[in-house]
Protein backbone atom coordinates (compact mmCIF):
# COMPACT_ATOMS: atom_id res chain seq x y z
CA UNK A 1 0.00 0.00 0.00
CA UNK A 2 1.34 3.38 -1.00
CA UNK A 3 0.39 6.64 0.59
CA UNK A 4 0.14 9.44 -1.89
CA UNK A 5 2.36 12.31 -0.96
CA UNK A 6 0.81 15.38 0.43
CA UNK A 7 -0.14 17.97 -2.12
CA UNK A 8 -0.21 21.63 -1.25
CA UNK A 9 -3.42 22.20 -3.20
CA UNK A 10 -5.30 20.35 -0.47
CA UNK A 11 -8.22 22.28 0.98
CA UNK A 12 -7.46 23.12 4.54
CA UNK A 13 -10.20 22.95 7.08
CA UNK A 14 -10.75 22.62 10.71
CA UNK A 15 -14.34 21.56 10.45
CA UNK A 16 -14.78 18.36 12.44
CA UNK A 17 -18.00 17.36 10.71
CA UNK A 18 -16.97 18.12 7.16
CA UNK A 19 -13.79 16.11 6.79
CA UNK A 20 -12.86 12.58 7.59
CA UNK A 21 -10.14 12.25 10.21
CA UNK A 22 -6.57 12.08 8.90
CA UNK A 23 -5.52 9.73 11.63
CA UNK A 24 -7.84 7.59 13.63
CA UNK A 25 -7.03 5.29 16.51
CA UNK A 26 -9.60 2.74 17.50
CA UNK A 27 -9.36 0.62 20.62
CA UNK A 28 -5.61 1.15 20.52
CA UNK A 29 -3.47 -0.33 23.30
CA UNK A 30 0.30 -0.45 23.63
CA UNK A 31 2.36 -2.73 25.83
CA UNK A 32 6.02 -2.68 26.80
CA UNK A 33 6.49 -6.34 27.61
CA UNK A 34 3.60 -7.02 29.99
CA UNK A 35 3.11 -3.46 31.12
CA UNK A 36 0.44 -1.48 29.31
CA UNK A 37 1.46 2.07 28.45
CA UNK A 38 -2.08 2.91 27.42
CA UNK A 39 -5.25 0.95 26.78
CA UNK A 40 -8.34 1.24 24.63
CA UNK A 41 -7.74 4.66 23.11
CA UNK A 42 -10.26 5.88 20.52
CA UNK A 43 -9.28 9.18 19.00
CA UNK A 44 -9.75 10.94 15.67
CA UNK A 45 -7.26 13.53 14.52
CA UNK A 46 -8.94 16.11 12.29
CA UNK A 47 -7.29 17.56 9.28
CA UNK A 48 -5.82 21.04 9.58
CA UNK A 49 -6.43 21.16 13.33
CA UNK A 50 -4.03 21.34 16.22
CA UNK A 51 -4.81 18.53 18.62
CA UNK A 52 -3.20 18.80 22.05
CA UNK A 53 -2.66 15.68 24.13
CA UNK A 54 -2.57 16.68 27.79
CA UNK A 55 -2.26 14.80 31.04
CA UNK A 56 0.27 13.94 33.74
CA UNK A 57 3.60 12.18 33.12
CA UNK A 58 3.50 8.49 32.45
CA UNK A 59 -0.02 8.38 31.10
CA UNK A 60 1.03 7.14 27.67
CA UNK A 61 0.81 10.36 25.66
CA UNK A 62 4.25 10.04 24.11
CA UNK A 63 3.81 6.34 23.45
CA UNK A 64 0.50 7.09 21.78
CA UNK A 65 2.13 9.74 19.62
CA UNK A 66 4.92 7.40 18.55
CA UNK A 67 2.45 4.65 17.74
CA UNK A 68 0.83 6.94 15.16
CA UNK A 69 3.74 6.63 12.75
CA UNK A 70 4.89 3.26 14.01
CA UNK A 71 8.08 4.58 15.53
CA UNK A 72 7.28 2.21 18.38
CA UNK A 73 8.45 -0.54 16.00
CA UNK A 74 11.98 0.44 17.01
CA UNK A 75 11.43 -0.44 20.64
CA UNK A 76 12.03 -4.11 21.36
CA UNK A 77 9.25 -5.92 23.23
CA UNK A 78 6.74 -3.26 22.30
CA UNK A 79 3.35 -4.61 21.21
CA UNK A 80 0.32 -2.87 19.76
CA UNK A 81 -3.31 -3.93 19.83
CA UNK A 82 -6.14 -2.23 18.02
CA UNK A 83 -5.90 -0.23 14.84
CA UNK A 84 -4.64 3.08 13.57
CA UNK A 85 -5.82 4.27 10.22
CA UNK A 86 -4.18 6.96 8.19
CA UNK A 87 -6.57 8.33 5.56
CA UNK A 88 -8.63 5.22 5.87
CA UNK A 89 -5.79 2.73 5.58
CA UNK A 90 -4.65 0.53 8.45
CA UNK A 91 -1.02 1.41 9.15
CA UNK A 92 -0.29 -1.94 10.79
CA UNK A 93 -1.01 -3.93 7.67
CA UNK A 94 2.02 -5.92 6.56
CA UNK A 95 1.98 -4.21 3.18
CA UNK A 96 2.28 -0.73 4.70
CA UNK A 97 5.04 1.37 3.22
CA UNK A 98 6.69 2.54 6.43
CA UNK A 99 8.89 5.03 4.65
CA UNK A 100 5.92 6.75 3.02
CA UNK A 101 3.96 6.63 6.28
CA UNK A 102 6.72 8.31 8.25
CA UNK A 103 7.23 10.87 5.56
CA UNK A 104 3.54 11.64 5.64
CA UNK A 105 3.35 11.60 9.43
CA UNK A 106 6.48 13.34 10.76
CA UNK A 107 7.52 13.32 14.40
CA UNK A 108 9.47 15.82 16.50
CA UNK A 109 11.01 14.67 19.76
CA UNK A 110 10.98 16.34 23.12
CA UNK A 111 14.73 16.72 23.17
CA UNK A 112 15.99 18.50 20.05
CA UNK A 113 17.60 15.76 18.03
CA UNK A 114 19.72 17.19 15.24
CA UNK A 115 21.98 14.63 13.65
CA UNK A 116 25.66 15.22 14.46
CA UNK A 117 26.39 16.85 11.12
CA UNK A 118 26.22 20.27 9.59
CA UNK A 119 22.98 22.23 9.47
CA UNK A 120 22.92 21.76 5.71
CA UNK A 121 23.37 17.99 5.84
CA UNK A 122 20.63 17.65 8.44
CA UNK A 123 18.14 18.89 5.85
CA UNK A 124 19.86 17.73 2.72
CA UNK A 125 20.38 14.08 3.56
CA UNK A 126 16.72 13.16 4.21
CA UNK A 127 15.64 15.04 1.08
CA UNK A 128 18.20 13.20 -1.00
CA UNK A 129 17.12 9.88 0.44
CA UNK A 130 13.51 10.68 -0.42
CA UNK A 131 14.41 10.95 -4.05
CA UNK A 132 15.11 14.63 -4.60
CA UNK A 133 18.10 14.18 -6.85
CA UNK A 134 18.29 17.73 -8.09
CA UNK A 135 20.63 19.77 -5.95
CA UNK A 136 18.98 23.08 -6.76
CA UNK A 137 15.57 21.72 -5.80
CA UNK A 138 16.94 20.48 -2.48
CA UNK A 139 18.53 23.86 -1.78
CA UNK A 140 15.24 25.60 -2.50
CA UNK A 141 13.31 23.25 -0.22
CA UNK A 142 15.91 23.70 2.49
CA UNK A 143 15.63 27.45 2.33
CA UNK A 144 11.84 27.51 2.33
CA UNK A 145 11.66 25.06 5.26
CA UNK A 146 14.17 27.13 7.23
CA UNK A 147 12.18 30.27 6.42
CA UNK A 148 9.00 28.53 7.61
CA UNK A 149 10.54 28.09 11.04
CA UNK A 150 12.11 31.58 11.00
CA UNK A 151 15.58 30.12 11.18
CA UNK A 152 16.87 31.06 7.75
CA UNK A 153 18.17 34.51 8.69
CA UNK A 154 19.90 33.10 11.74
CA UNK A 155 21.73 30.29 9.95
CA UNK A 156 22.08 31.22 6.28
CA UNK A 157 25.65 32.40 6.86
CA UNK A 158 26.72 29.21 8.58
CA UNK A 159 24.89 26.33 6.95
CA UNK A 160 28.04 24.24 7.10
CA UNK A 161 28.68 24.57 10.81
CA UNK A 162 27.62 21.70 13.08
CA UNK A 163 23.92 21.61 13.93
CA UNK A 164 24.90 20.95 17.53
CA UNK A 165 26.43 24.43 17.72
CA UNK A 166 22.94 25.96 17.57
CA UNK A 167 21.04 26.86 20.73
CA UNK A 168 18.37 24.47 22.02
CA UNK A 169 15.51 26.46 20.53
CA UNK A 170 17.28 26.79 17.19
CA UNK A 171 17.98 23.04 17.19
CA UNK A 172 14.31 22.31 17.81
CA UNK A 173 13.27 24.64 15.00
CA UNK A 174 15.85 22.97 12.76
CA UNK A 175 14.27 19.60 13.56
CA UNK A 176 10.84 20.98 12.69
CA UNK A 177 12.23 22.44 9.46
CA UNK A 178 13.78 19.08 8.64
CA UNK A 179 10.38 17.43 8.99
CA UNK A 180 8.57 20.23 7.09
CA UNK A 181 11.00 19.97 4.18
CA UNK A 182 9.61 16.49 3.51
CA UNK A 183 6.13 18.02 3.18
CA UNK A 184 4.30 15.86 5.67
CA UNK A 185 0.57 15.90 6.09
CA UNK A 186 0.64 15.42 9.83
CA UNK A 187 3.25 16.63 12.28
CA UNK A 188 3.48 14.91 15.65
CA UNK A 189 5.26 16.95 18.30
CA UNK A 190 6.28 15.36 21.58
CA UNK A 191 6.53 18.13 24.17
CA UNK A 192 8.52 20.24 21.74
CA UNK A 193 8.98 23.12 24.18
CA UNK A 194 9.68 21.39 27.45
CA UNK A 195 13.47 21.19 26.98
CA UNK A 196 13.71 24.85 25.97
CA UNK A 197 14.10 28.16 27.77
CA UNK A 198 11.01 30.43 27.90
CA UNK A 199 12.01 32.59 24.92
CA UNK A 200 12.80 29.66 22.63
CA UNK A 201 9.70 27.93 23.91
CA UNK A 202 7.61 30.92 22.90
CA UNK A 203 9.18 30.96 19.44
CA UNK A 204 8.44 27.28 18.90
CA UNK A 205 4.90 27.70 20.18
CA UNK A 206 4.24 30.57 17.76
CA UNK A 207 5.64 28.42 15.01
CA UNK A 208 3.24 25.58 15.85
CA UNK A 209 0.31 27.98 15.82
CA UNK A 210 1.43 29.17 12.38
CA UNK A 211 1.36 25.61 11.09
CA UNK A 212 -2.39 25.39 11.65
CA UNK A 213 -4.33 24.83 8.41
CA UNK A 214 -1.15 24.06 6.49
CA UNK A 215 -0.53 20.89 8.43
CA UNK A 216 -2.39 18.69 10.82
CA UNK A 217 -0.62 18.96 14.15
CA UNK A 218 -0.74 16.68 17.16
CA UNK A 219 1.17 18.06 20.11
CA UNK A 220 1.85 16.48 23.47
CA UNK A 221 2.17 19.09 26.17
CA UNK A 222 2.35 19.39 29.91
CA UNK A 223 1.58 23.02 29.66
CA UNK A 224 -2.16 23.58 29.92
CA UNK A 225 -1.82 27.28 29.21
CA UNK A 226 -0.05 26.41 26.00
CA UNK A 227 -2.76 23.91 25.05
CA UNK A 228 -5.37 26.59 25.72
CA UNK A 229 -3.51 29.06 23.50
CA UNK A 230 -2.95 26.90 20.46
CA UNK A 231 -5.20 23.84 20.44
CA UNK A 232 -8.36 23.30 18.43
CA UNK A 233 -8.94 19.88 19.93
CA UNK A 234 -7.84 18.60 23.29
CA UNK A 235 -7.47 14.99 24.41
CA UNK A 236 -7.01 14.37 28.10
CA UNK A 237 -5.09 11.30 29.27
CA UNK A 238 -4.99 9.93 32.80
CA UNK A 239 -3.57 6.84 34.47
CA UNK A 240 -6.22 4.35 35.54
CA UNK A 241 -5.56 0.77 36.64
CA UNK A 242 -1.85 1.13 35.87
CA UNK A 243 -2.38 2.10 32.28
CA UNK A 244 -2.90 5.34 30.42
CA UNK A 245 -6.48 6.02 29.38
CA UNK A 246 -8.06 8.61 27.20
CA UNK A 247 -10.54 10.20 29.59
CA UNK A 248 -12.10 12.86 27.46
CA UNK A 249 -11.58 14.58 24.16
CA UNK A 250 -13.25 17.23 22.11
CA UNK A 251 -13.00 20.83 20.97
CA UNK A 252 -10.69 22.89 23.15
CA UNK A 253 -13.31 25.42 24.18
CA UNK A 254 -15.61 22.67 25.40
CA UNK A 255 -12.88 20.86 27.33
CA UNK A 256 -11.59 24.02 28.96
CA UNK A 257 -14.91 25.66 29.73
CA UNK A 258 -17.19 22.75 30.49
CA UNK A 259 -15.53 19.35 30.74
CA UNK A 260 -17.82 16.39 31.19
CA UNK A 261 -15.51 14.31 33.31
CA UNK A 262 -14.69 15.12 36.93
CA UNK A 263 -11.03 14.16 36.44
CA UNK A 264 -10.69 16.51 33.51
CA UNK A 265 -12.32 19.28 35.50
CA UNK A 266 -9.93 18.75 38.41
CA UNK A 267 -6.90 18.57 36.16
CA UNK A 268 -7.79 21.69 34.25
CA UNK A 269 -8.53 23.57 37.43
CA UNK A 270 -5.06 22.59 38.59
CA UNK A 271 -6.44 20.53 41.45
CA UNK A 272 -4.88 17.27 40.29
CA UNK A 273 -2.02 16.12 38.13
Amino acid at each position, binding site marked *: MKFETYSSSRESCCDREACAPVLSASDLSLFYGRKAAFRGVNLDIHEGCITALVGPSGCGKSSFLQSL*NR*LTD*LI*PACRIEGTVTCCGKDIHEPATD*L*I*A*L*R*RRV*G*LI*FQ*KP*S*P*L*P*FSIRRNLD*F*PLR*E*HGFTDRGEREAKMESALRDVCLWDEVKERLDS*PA*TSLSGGQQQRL*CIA*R*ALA*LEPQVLLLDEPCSALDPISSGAVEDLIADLRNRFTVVVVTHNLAQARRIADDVAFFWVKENAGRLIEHGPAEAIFSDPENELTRAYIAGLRG
Partner: protein
Amino acid sequence: MDSSGDRWLLWVLRGSAVIAGGVTLLVILFLVAASVPAFQHLGVVRFFTDASWHPAEYAAEGTFNLWPMLVGSLLVTAGAVLIAAPLGVGAAVFCQYYAPGAVAATYRRAIELLAGIPSVVFGFWGLIVLVPMINQWHPPGQSLLAAVLILSLMILPTIAMISDASMAQLPDEYRFSAEALGLTRWATVRGVMLPAAAPGVLTGLILATGRAIGETLAVLMVCGNIVQIPTSAFEPVRTLTANIALEMAYAAGDHRASLFVTGLILTFIVVALVFIVEKINRRFSSLIP
Protein backbone atom coordinates in the same frame (compact mmCIF):
# COMPACT_ATOMS: atom_id res chain seq x y z
CA MET B 1 41.23 14.06 50.12
CA ASP B 2 41.43 14.29 53.88
CA SER B 3 40.95 10.74 55.01
CA SER B 4 44.04 8.56 55.27
CA GLY B 5 42.34 5.95 53.07
CA ASP B 6 42.16 8.40 50.20
CA ARG B 7 45.78 9.41 50.68
CA TRP B 8 46.88 5.76 50.61
CA LEU B 9 44.87 5.09 47.48
CA LEU B 10 46.39 8.15 45.84
CA TRP B 11 49.91 6.92 46.52
CA VAL B 12 49.12 3.40 45.34
CA LEU B 13 47.65 4.82 42.12
CA ARG B 14 50.62 7.14 41.65
CA GLY B 15 52.95 4.19 42.17
CA SER B 16 51.14 2.03 39.58
CA ALA B 17 51.15 4.89 37.11
CA VAL B 18 54.89 5.43 37.57
CA ILE B 19 55.60 1.72 37.16
CA ALA B 20 53.45 1.36 34.01
CA GLY B 21 54.86 4.49 32.40
CA GLY B 22 58.41 3.75 33.56
CA VAL B 23 58.44 0.24 32.12
CA THR B 24 57.33 1.51 28.71
CA LEU B 25 60.01 4.17 28.78
CA LEU B 26 62.69 1.69 29.86
CA VAL B 27 61.78 -0.75 27.11
CA ILE B 28 62.12 1.99 24.50
CA LEU B 29 65.36 3.25 26.05
CA PHE B 30 66.73 -0.28 26.03
CA LEU B 31 65.74 -0.73 22.39
CA VAL B 32 67.49 2.48 21.46
CA ALA B 33 70.59 1.64 23.50
CA ALA B 34 70.81 -1.84 22.03
CA SER B 35 70.47 -0.42 18.51
CA VAL B 36 73.18 2.19 18.94
CA PRO B 37 76.12 -0.08 17.97
CA ALA B 38 74.39 -0.90 14.70
CA PHE B 39 73.89 2.77 13.89
CA GLN B 40 77.53 3.49 14.85
CA HIS B 41 78.97 0.75 12.65
CA LEU B 42 76.47 0.79 9.79
CA GLY B 43 74.80 4.19 9.82
CA VAL B 44 71.14 4.49 8.93
CA VAL B 45 71.32 4.42 5.15
CA ARG B 46 72.82 0.94 4.82
CA PHE B 47 69.65 -0.60 6.32
CA PHE B 48 67.83 0.53 3.20
CA THR B 49 70.51 0.47 0.51
CA ASP B 50 72.58 -2.67 1.12
CA ALA B 51 72.42 -5.34 -1.58
CA SER B 52 70.67 -7.92 0.59
CA TRP B 53 70.04 -9.19 4.12
CA HIS B 54 73.03 -11.38 4.91
CA PRO B 55 73.93 -10.15 8.35
CA ALA B 56 77.18 -10.93 10.10
CA GLU B 57 78.70 -10.27 13.49
CA TYR B 58 80.84 -7.45 12.09
CA ALA B 59 79.28 -4.71 10.01
CA ALA B 60 81.92 -4.89 7.29
CA GLU B 61 81.39 -8.59 6.61
CA GLY B 62 77.65 -8.63 6.02
CA THR B 63 74.83 -6.87 4.23
CA PHE B 64 71.94 -5.47 6.22
CA ASN B 65 69.05 -4.39 4.02
CA LEU B 66 65.84 -4.33 6.08
CA TRP B 67 63.77 -2.73 3.31
CA PRO B 68 62.22 -5.96 1.91
CA MET B 69 61.08 -6.93 5.41
CA LEU B 70 59.59 -3.51 6.05
CA VAL B 71 57.76 -3.85 2.74
CA GLY B 72 56.72 -7.38 3.75
CA SER B 73 55.32 -6.18 7.06
CA LEU B 74 53.45 -3.31 5.44
CA LEU B 75 52.01 -5.50 2.66
CA VAL B 76 50.86 -8.22 5.05
CA THR B 77 49.29 -5.63 7.35
CA ALA B 78 47.65 -3.62 4.58
CA GLY B 79 46.20 -6.78 3.02
CA ALA B 80 44.85 -8.03 6.33
CA VAL B 81 43.26 -4.68 7.19
CA LEU B 82 41.75 -4.39 3.71
CA ILE B 83 40.07 -7.77 4.10
CA ALA B 84 39.15 -7.55 7.78
CA ALA B 85 37.85 -3.95 7.80
CA PRO B 86 34.74 -4.47 5.66
CA LEU B 87 34.04 -7.82 7.31
CA GLY B 88 34.48 -6.47 10.83
CA VAL B 89 32.50 -3.28 10.30
CA GLY B 90 29.85 -5.30 8.46
CA ALA B 91 29.62 -7.73 11.37
CA ALA B 92 29.18 -4.83 13.79
CA VAL B 93 26.48 -3.20 11.66
CA PHE B 94 24.68 -6.53 11.40
CA CYS B 95 24.77 -6.99 15.19
CA GLN B 96 23.64 -3.47 15.95
CA TYR B 97 20.98 -2.78 13.37
CA TYR B 98 19.80 -5.90 11.64
CA ALA B 99 20.14 -9.04 13.75
CA PRO B 100 17.36 -9.97 16.18
CA GLY B 101 18.48 -9.74 19.82
CA ALA B 102 19.26 -13.41 20.37
CA VAL B 103 21.17 -13.76 17.11
CA ALA B 104 23.21 -10.64 17.84
CA ALA B 105 24.11 -11.88 21.31
CA THR B 106 25.24 -15.27 20.01
CA TYR B 107 27.14 -13.64 17.20
CA ARG B 108 28.94 -11.34 19.63
CA ARG B 109 29.99 -14.33 21.76
CA ALA B 110 31.36 -16.01 18.63
CA ILE B 111 33.40 -12.93 17.71
CA GLU B 112 34.76 -12.70 21.25
CA LEU B 113 35.71 -16.36 21.06
CA LEU B 114 37.57 -15.70 17.83
CA ALA B 115 39.50 -12.97 19.66
CA GLY B 116 40.47 -15.44 22.35
CA ILE B 117 42.07 -18.05 20.10
CA PRO B 118 45.87 -18.02 20.65
CA SER B 119 47.91 -16.92 17.67
CA VAL B 120 49.84 -20.20 17.56
CA VAL B 121 46.56 -22.00 16.89
CA PHE B 122 45.83 -19.69 13.98
CA GLY B 123 49.35 -20.27 12.67
CA PHE B 124 49.11 -24.02 13.05
CA TRP B 125 45.74 -24.14 11.31
CA GLY B 126 47.15 -21.96 8.56
CA LEU B 127 50.15 -24.21 8.10
CA ILE B 128 48.14 -27.44 8.05
CA VAL B 129 45.03 -26.33 6.15
CA LEU B 130 45.47 -23.00 4.40
CA VAL B 131 49.01 -23.34 3.07
CA PRO B 132 48.35 -26.71 1.33
CA MET B 133 45.20 -25.24 -0.23
CA ILE B 134 47.09 -22.27 -1.60
CA ASN B 135 49.86 -24.63 -2.70
CA GLN B 136 47.40 -26.56 -4.87
CA TRP B 137 46.19 -23.35 -6.40
CA HIS B 138 49.56 -21.73 -6.85
CA PRO B 139 52.75 -23.16 -5.26
CA PRO B 140 54.58 -22.85 -2.92
CA GLY B 141 51.67 -22.07 -0.59
CA GLN B 142 53.66 -20.33 2.12
CA SER B 143 53.09 -16.86 0.88
CA LEU B 144 52.07 -13.28 1.34
CA LEU B 145 48.49 -14.41 0.66
CA ALA B 146 48.54 -17.03 3.43
CA ALA B 147 49.88 -14.47 5.91
CA VAL B 148 47.27 -11.90 4.85
CA LEU B 149 44.40 -14.37 5.26
CA ILE B 150 45.52 -15.66 8.66
CA LEU B 151 46.16 -12.17 9.92
CA SER B 152 42.82 -10.85 8.70
CA LEU B 153 41.08 -13.58 10.72
CA MET B 154 43.09 -12.55 13.75
CA ILE B 155 42.31 -8.83 13.59
CA LEU B 156 38.69 -9.26 12.52
CA PRO B 157 37.40 -9.51 16.12
CA THR B 158 39.26 -6.35 17.18
CA ILE B 159 37.65 -4.38 14.38
CA ALA B 160 34.22 -5.92 14.91
CA MET B 161 34.19 -5.46 18.68
CA ILE B 162 35.45 -1.87 18.69
CA SER B 163 33.08 -0.88 15.87
CA ASP B 164 30.22 -2.58 17.68
CA ALA B 165 31.04 -0.79 20.92
CA SER B 166 31.36 2.60 19.26
CA MET B 167 28.00 2.18 17.51
CA ALA B 168 26.39 1.02 20.74
CA GLN B 169 27.56 4.27 22.37
CA LEU B 170 25.66 6.44 19.92
CA PRO B 171 22.56 7.99 21.44
CA ASP B 172 19.27 6.28 20.52
CA GLU B 173 17.99 9.67 19.36
CA TYR B 174 20.09 9.50 16.20
CA ARG B 175 18.38 6.35 15.12
CA PHE B 176 14.94 7.43 16.22
CA SER B 177 15.14 10.81 14.54
CA ALA B 178 16.54 9.28 11.36
CA GLU B 179 13.77 6.71 11.17
CA ALA B 180 11.16 9.31 12.10
CA LEU B 181 12.26 11.17 8.97
CA GLY B 182 11.28 8.14 6.96
CA LEU B 183 14.82 7.06 6.18
CA THR B 184 15.28 3.42 5.33
CA ARG B 185 17.29 1.26 7.69
CA TRP B 186 20.18 1.23 5.26
CA ALA B 187 20.09 5.00 4.79
CA THR B 188 20.05 5.41 8.56
CA VAL B 189 23.09 3.16 8.93
CA ARG B 190 25.01 4.56 5.98
CA GLY B 191 24.13 8.22 6.34
CA VAL B 192 23.82 8.64 10.09
CA MET B 193 25.11 5.85 12.29
CA LEU B 194 28.33 4.97 10.44
CA PRO B 195 29.48 8.58 10.02
CA ALA B 196 28.64 9.30 13.65
CA ALA B 197 30.56 6.20 14.77
CA ALA B 198 33.44 6.87 12.37
CA PRO B 199 35.99 8.04 14.98
CA GLY B 200 35.44 4.87 17.00
CA VAL B 201 35.50 2.63 13.95
CA LEU B 202 38.68 4.32 12.74
CA THR B 203 40.28 3.85 16.15
CA GLY B 204 39.41 0.16 15.93
CA LEU B 205 40.96 -0.08 12.48
CA ILE B 206 44.18 1.54 13.65
CA LEU B 207 44.45 -0.61 16.76
CA ALA B 208 43.90 -3.64 14.54
CA THR B 209 46.63 -2.36 12.23
CA GLY B 210 48.93 -2.13 15.23
CA ARG B 211 48.10 -5.66 16.20
CA ALA B 212 48.63 -6.89 12.64
CA ILE B 213 52.01 -5.25 12.25
CA GLY B 214 53.17 -6.67 15.57
CA GLU B 215 51.88 -10.21 15.07
CA THR B 216 54.80 -12.61 14.85
CA LEU B 217 54.20 -16.27 15.36
CA ALA B 218 51.19 -16.98 13.19
CA VAL B 219 52.66 -14.95 10.34
CA LEU B 220 56.05 -16.59 10.68
CA MET B 221 54.43 -20.02 10.37
CA VAL B 222 52.74 -19.32 7.04
CA CYS B 223 54.59 -16.53 5.24
CA GLY B 224 57.59 -18.51 3.96
CA ASN B 225 60.18 -16.15 5.47
CA ILE B 226 62.21 -15.55 2.33
CA VAL B 227 63.71 -12.07 2.32
CA GLN B 228 62.42 -10.52 -0.88
CA ILE B 229 60.03 -7.92 -2.18
CA PRO B 230 57.23 -10.10 -3.54
CA THR B 231 55.99 -9.59 -7.09
CA SER B 232 52.77 -11.52 -6.49
CA ALA B 233 50.59 -12.53 -3.56
CA PHE B 234 51.71 -16.14 -3.97
CA GLU B 235 55.36 -15.41 -3.25
CA PRO B 236 56.88 -15.89 0.20
CA VAL B 237 57.79 -12.83 2.24
CA ARG B 238 59.44 -12.13 5.56
CA THR B 239 58.11 -9.59 8.03
CA LEU B 240 60.11 -7.49 10.49
CA THR B 241 58.65 -9.42 13.40
CA ALA B 242 59.44 -12.80 11.89
CA ASN B 243 62.98 -11.60 11.20
CA ILE B 244 63.61 -10.99 14.89
CA ALA B 245 62.04 -14.25 15.98
CA LEU B 246 63.91 -16.32 13.41
CA GLU B 247 67.39 -14.93 14.00
CA MET B 248 67.52 -13.84 17.62
CA ALA B 249 68.72 -17.22 18.81
CA TYR B 250 72.08 -17.02 17.08
CA ALA B 251 72.61 -13.32 16.33
CA ALA B 252 75.66 -11.62 17.82
CA GLY B 253 77.45 -8.30 17.55
CA ASP B 254 76.19 -6.00 14.81
CA HIS B 255 73.76 -8.67 13.62
CA ARG B 256 72.13 -8.67 17.04
CA ALA B 257 72.13 -4.87 17.13
CA SER B 258 70.48 -4.71 13.74
CA LEU B 259 67.72 -7.01 15.00
CA PHE B 260 67.13 -4.40 17.68
CA VAL B 261 66.96 -1.80 14.91
CA THR B 262 64.25 -3.99 13.38
CA GLY B 263 62.39 -3.85 16.68
CA LEU B 264 62.89 -0.11 16.85
CA ILE B 265 61.31 0.36 13.44
CA LEU B 266 58.30 -1.71 14.53
CA THR B 267 57.98 0.32 17.71
CA PHE B 268 58.09 3.55 15.76
CA ILE B 269 55.31 2.35 13.47
CA VAL B 270 53.10 1.40 16.41
CA VAL B 271 53.84 4.69 18.21
CA ALA B 272 52.88 6.54 15.04
CA LEU B 273 49.59 4.60 14.91
CA VAL B 274 48.80 5.41 18.55
CA PHE B 275 49.56 9.04 17.79
CA ILE B 276 47.10 8.97 14.89
CA VAL B 277 44.41 7.48 17.15
CA GLU B 278 44.97 10.33 19.62
CA LYS B 279 44.64 12.85 16.83
CA ILE B 280 41.42 11.34 15.56
CA ASN B 281 39.85 11.22 19.00
CA ARG B 282 40.78 14.81 19.75
CA ARG B 283 39.53 16.02 16.39
CA PHE B 284 36.16 14.31 16.63
CA SER B 285 35.42 14.67 20.32
CA SER B 286 34.79 18.37 19.70
CA LEU B 287 32.37 17.57 16.91
CA ILE B 288 30.05 15.16 18.67
CA PRO B 289 28.49 16.13 21.99
